[in-house]
């Protein structure tokens, strides 16, 4: 089929480190990778360096995890209890934060870069088995990774007694099965163990202490491991020459949404958001103006244009009132309805909630539902405060960061664009009308469609609840074997739904059908 995109068509720059050869179509083959200095770092480490020296290199470079938390990688490795073996190294390649599409480029086009970083990390921490937890949707990346692993075995970079040393290392790709929550590190480990991907109770706070099969496990993002490759190969200074002192290095920035040149760019940390948007992104679309930017994927607060001059790194984005996260920069221009945007993001979290803890499992659908009501012109003046109240009830009370993230777009949208919410309520319609870019509502006025929207609750496949309504305690039981029975979350219900709202729920029936949340996706 000629129309198949064999490779991602993303626009990418020839960056200084990770993206140096990204636009070379043959870079995924080991011969080309070796021509470009590949596996020199591994040779150097195995011949001249002790594992402790590799860790020291990474510490000197002040490499901080690229998955979003920016936790110092060397310190993470230091948390592994001494003398406990076997140990594991796992790469988090479950890239699924909306707006993020960087790891996929590396795995499709330069997989050996990741492999080398993983082998080096395994050497550093004393692990002999490496897993790459790859999200299912990346078919080509899976092919390329397996191909690269085979090549690495053939060349003696994997297997027994690597390059004549005493170091052994095996590697396998473990493919996920479509669950955003598996990007959460402890859920990822459960998924790797062949279980439902649900987060584990902390402490222990890091998988470094108790990870895969309860053994010490080094778990980082793909981009982090790729940085290890370059730090070992060329020394820590190659890394620290970029970025600011506290947060050195480069970052793969994924630019998407309303910009002229979306793409993935490797940029030094600390450039301003404005530079990213205008110089790399090419500015807003014809006749439009930027209205809002999410700097780090769906979980991070939305920023208005007056924050564009803050430096784009961990500290800079915190100062601006957001987070750098995974650097998935989603840009929205003035054609975007912020209620719609928040609704879209909350629906994402609603769909992806694993169902383990109550505030997330119940809170996300409530947020989603109230936003939908406002967007459809059926919002009530109290609804905006009701949303904030639900956010308050979720904040700090969820089991993992997924639930905590779901309230972020809602809060930040209300904080900066409250007038839009009020306008929706006052006018009883979406002021952006048919022309706006909101998903799920453009011309979507027929209630049947809204009602039909099937939102699968993970693992709650107990079939639709007859009659809908959410006012029947005990009516909503996921009947599937082996799954926790799920009540209505009566307390939450009461808190989120004051009397008026309850009446409205009864009145607006189709907009408030718990039933649909229980039916299966297909």
């Amino acid at each position, binding site marked *: 089929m000629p129309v198949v995109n064999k490779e991602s068509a993303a626009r990418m720059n020839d960056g200084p480190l990770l993206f140096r050869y990204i636009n070379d179509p043959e870079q995924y083959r080991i011969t080309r990778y070796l021509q470009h200095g590949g596996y020199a770092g591994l040779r150097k480490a195995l011949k001249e360096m002790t594992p402790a020296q590799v860790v020291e290199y990474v510490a000197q470079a002040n490499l901080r995890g690229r998955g979003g938390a920016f936790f110092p990688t060397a310190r993470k490795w230091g948390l592994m209890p001494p003398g406990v073996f076997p140990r594991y190294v796992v790469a988090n390649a479950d890239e699924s934060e909306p707006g*993020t599409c960087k790891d996929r480029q590396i795995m499709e086009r330069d997989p050996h870069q990741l492999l080398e970083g993983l082998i080096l990390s395994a050497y550093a921490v004393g692990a002999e088995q490496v897993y790459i937890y790859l999200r299912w949707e990346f078919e080509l990346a899976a092919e390329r990774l397996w191909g690269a692993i085979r090549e690495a075995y053939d060349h003696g970079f994997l297997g027994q007694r690597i390059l004549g040393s005493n170091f052994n290392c095996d590697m396998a790709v473990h493919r996920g099965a479509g669950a955003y929550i598996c990007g959460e590190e402890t859920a990822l480990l459960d998924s790797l163990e062949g279980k439902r991907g649900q987060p584990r109770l902390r402490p222990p706070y890091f998988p470094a202490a108790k990870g895969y099969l309860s053994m010490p496990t080094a778990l980082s993002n793909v981009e982090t491991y790729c940085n290890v490759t370059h730090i070992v190969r060329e020394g820590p200074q190659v890394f620290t020459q970029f970025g600011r002192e506290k947060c050195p290095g480069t970052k793969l920035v994924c630019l*998407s949404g309303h910009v002229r040149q979306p793409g993935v760019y490797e940029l030094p940390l600390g450039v301003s958001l404005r530079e990213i948007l205008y110089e790399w992104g090419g500015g807003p679309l014809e006749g439009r103006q930027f209205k809002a930017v999410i700097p780090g994927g769906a979980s991070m607060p939305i920023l208005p244009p007056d924050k564009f001059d803050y430096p784009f790194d961990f500290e800079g984005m915190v100062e601006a009132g957001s987070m750098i996260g995974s650097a998935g920069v989603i840009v929205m221009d003035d054609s975007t309805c912020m209620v719609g945007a928040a609704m879209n*993001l909350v629906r994402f979290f609603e769909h992806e909630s694993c169902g383990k803890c109550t505030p997330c499992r119940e809170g996300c659908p409530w947020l989603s539902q109230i936003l939908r009501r406002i967007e459809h012109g059926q919002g009530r003046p109290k609804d905006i405060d009701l949303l904030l109240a639900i956010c308050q009830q979720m904040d700090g009370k969820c089991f993992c960061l997924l639930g905590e993230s779901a309230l972020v777009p809602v809060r930040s949208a209300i904080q900066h664009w409250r007038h839009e919410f009020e306008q929706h309520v006052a006018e009883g319609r979406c002021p952006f009308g048919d022309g706006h870019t909101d998903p*799920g509502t453009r011309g979507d006025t027929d209630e049947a469609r809204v009602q039909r929207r099937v939102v699968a609750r993970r693992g709650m496949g107990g079939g639709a609840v007859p009659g809908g309504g959410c006012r029947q305690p005990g009516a909503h039981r996921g009947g599937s074997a082996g799954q926790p029975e799920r009540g209505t979350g009566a307390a939450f219900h009461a808190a989120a739904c004051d009397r008026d709202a309850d009446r409205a729920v009864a009145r607006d029936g189709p907009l408030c059908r718990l039933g649909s949340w229980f039916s299966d996706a297909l």
Partner: protein
Amino acid sequence: MTQARAGLRETCRAEVEEILARYPERRSALLPLLHLVQREEGYISEAAMREVAEIVGCRPVDVFDVVTFYTVYHRQPVGKYLLEVCRTLSCALLGGRKLTRHLEERLGIQAGETTADGLFTLREVECIGACSNAPAMLINNRIYENLTPEKLDAILEQLRAEASERVAPPEGERQGLP
């Protein structure tokens, strides 16, 4: 399913062994084995779940537990081509919704349904990691990017032509490395 199934251990013995060998314990092989079942049989039947449970040494209910958690596993057969349109923000901003509408119209089905000829199943999914090339969709797990309704028409036409030409894709094109 009343139809007899040959069983994984007979049809893909070598692959099953290879998958089990990747992990220090059998249970970890559950997800890849389920992928294998789905690649071979198109969906995951109860009989298959029992067999996989036997292979990895857990209870069938544990397998059911896992199958129902992840969105990739189908418990019923789906169309020959599974069309999954991304609906999350980056795609939505650039007309992802329009694509779904367009496909619904062209195929005469709603999202979540399969065409009567069993050729196409259409569904909306969350972010597929192609944000910089939005709007995007997956067709049998291959990512299609920078889509427009016109491109969709061309793609549908090609898929139909392909489907009428041959029954099964050649060996090399089978999807889904488990």
